[in-house]
């Protein structure tokens, strides 16, 4: 073992009894080594003597956050890593290209069919030629009658295709949103949130991505925008609990304000204990404390 490894073991008390005795014999025989070890020991001891203490404020913040997390635990919010989400962006691009190709293939023949059906010639023939026209019309009628089920089924097919297109479009939109929410740039994530806000009934995956963004995004603006977006959708108990939990964990007055206002609008009575804590906490911004107090008043009225 090298000298420096033995000295480290000696200073940190990691030598066995036998090794320690042997090393101390070496020390007594070698004044240079002894001086070095003594100096190192002195510095190590100084390092042992300095230690800062924690404080009540730190503790209360942690226990508040823990309380919020416990509220969330009752919901099924699993933040397990989902490797497939990494490929969302590529999937979105491929889906977009496929969709464009598919639209091209599907819409071209449909337009030709429409032109054939609607291009009926105006009736401007002289009276003496009435008979042939009638014959012609009856032939057309028979042809039209024969075409009726075909036309009807074509209409149905077109309707189905449009519905399918809409579904595909929504799916693509959702994939793009999921991709944007994971972007490094905050402005891209904000763009994703704008797209998400335009959705009518987003899939659970989008809601989960928004929840993740609210809990983990480092940009305050993105988090504020996420709160607004989440409020637009179905205000489930899960979303309410996530917002309450976020309120226990953030120190940003702007975010606290937005969360309190949103929770009051959502009539989330479960946020009352947190509002009360915020109202009492002297470290919290005054405007937030006042807002929490008025929130308590409003929510209590709803309860009654």
């Amino acid at each position, binding site marked *: 073992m*090298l000298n*420096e*490894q033995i*000295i*480290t*073991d000696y*200073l*940190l008390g*990691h030598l066995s009894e036998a090794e320690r005795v042997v090393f101390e014999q070496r020390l007594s025989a070698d004044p240079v080594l002894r001086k070095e070890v003594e*100096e*190192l020991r*002195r*510095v*190590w001891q*100084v*390092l*042992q*003597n*300095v*230690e*800062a*203490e*924690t*404080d009540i*404020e*730190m*503790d209360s*913040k*942690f*226990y508040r*956050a*823990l309380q919020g*997390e*416990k509220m969330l*635990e009752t919901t099924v919010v*699993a*933040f*397990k*890593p989902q490797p497939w989400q990494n490929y969302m962006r590529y999937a979105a691009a491929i889906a977009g290209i496929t969709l464009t190709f598919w639209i091209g293939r599907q819409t071209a023949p449909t337009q030709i069919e429409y032109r054939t059906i609607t291009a009926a010639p105006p009736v401007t023939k002289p009276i003496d030629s009435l008979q042939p026209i009638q014959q012609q019309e009856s032939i057309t009628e028979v042809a039209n009658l024969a075409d009726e089920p075909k036309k009807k089924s074509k209409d149905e097919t077109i309707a189905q295709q449009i519905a399918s297109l809409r579904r595909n479009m929504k799916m693509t939109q959702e994939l793009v949103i999921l991709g944007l929410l994971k972007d490094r740039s905050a402005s891209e994530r904000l763009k994703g949130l704008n797209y998400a806000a335009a959705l009518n009934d987003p899939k659970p995956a989008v809601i989960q991505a928004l929840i993740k963004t609210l*809990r*983990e995004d*480092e940009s305050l603006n993105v988090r504020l925008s996420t709160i607004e977006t989440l409020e637009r959708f179905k205000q489930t108990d899960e979303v309410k609990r996530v917002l309450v939990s976020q309120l226990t*964990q953030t120190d940003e007055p702007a975010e606290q304000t937005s969360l309190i206002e949103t929770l009051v609008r959502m009539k989330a009575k479960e946020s009352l204990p947190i509002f009360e804590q915020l109202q009492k906490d002297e470290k919290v911004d005054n405007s937030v404390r006042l807002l929490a107090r008025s929130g308590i008043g409003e929510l209590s009225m709803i309860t009654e």
Partner: protein
Amino acid sequence: MTDEQAMYAVSQGDLDKAAILYERYKKSLLNFFLYRQNDRENARDLTQQVFLRMLRYRHTYREGASFRTWILEIARNVFFDHLKQNPTFSDLTEIPDVGESYDETDEQHQYLHHALAQLPEQYREVLLLSRFQNMNYEEIGQTLGLSVANVKVRVFRAMQKLRDLYFNVSSQ
């Protein structure tokens, strides 16, 4: 209850056990951050962030994995994220305010802090892991990606450098 048992319980939804881990690790993490930058308020925030991440990412904890190594990995990530956002905090230029209980006339502490401030980051980190996290060589090696022999050598060199700086500062 060991740290690992407590963390496994937390990962399975028994969140009350997180309080045990918080009480065991809050002080060592606070000091770990305090001696890597110069601001108590920041050290407190960073410590808070570590425990928030512990709660959020509890599902990623694998049964039997060393809790100390796992939480330190989180602490290092929190610190690097902090440095990315606040590059100026990488310089230790002031004596940290270590709290009301600390006697500010303590010269030893001032010398030590100055010496630590001048220590290269890789040396400072290895000393703080050993001192404030009570990590053994294996755990430090696992955290820093070093062999046990290399950890010992690095601790020794860090101590040597700290000694030189400490005596240099205190003799001025």
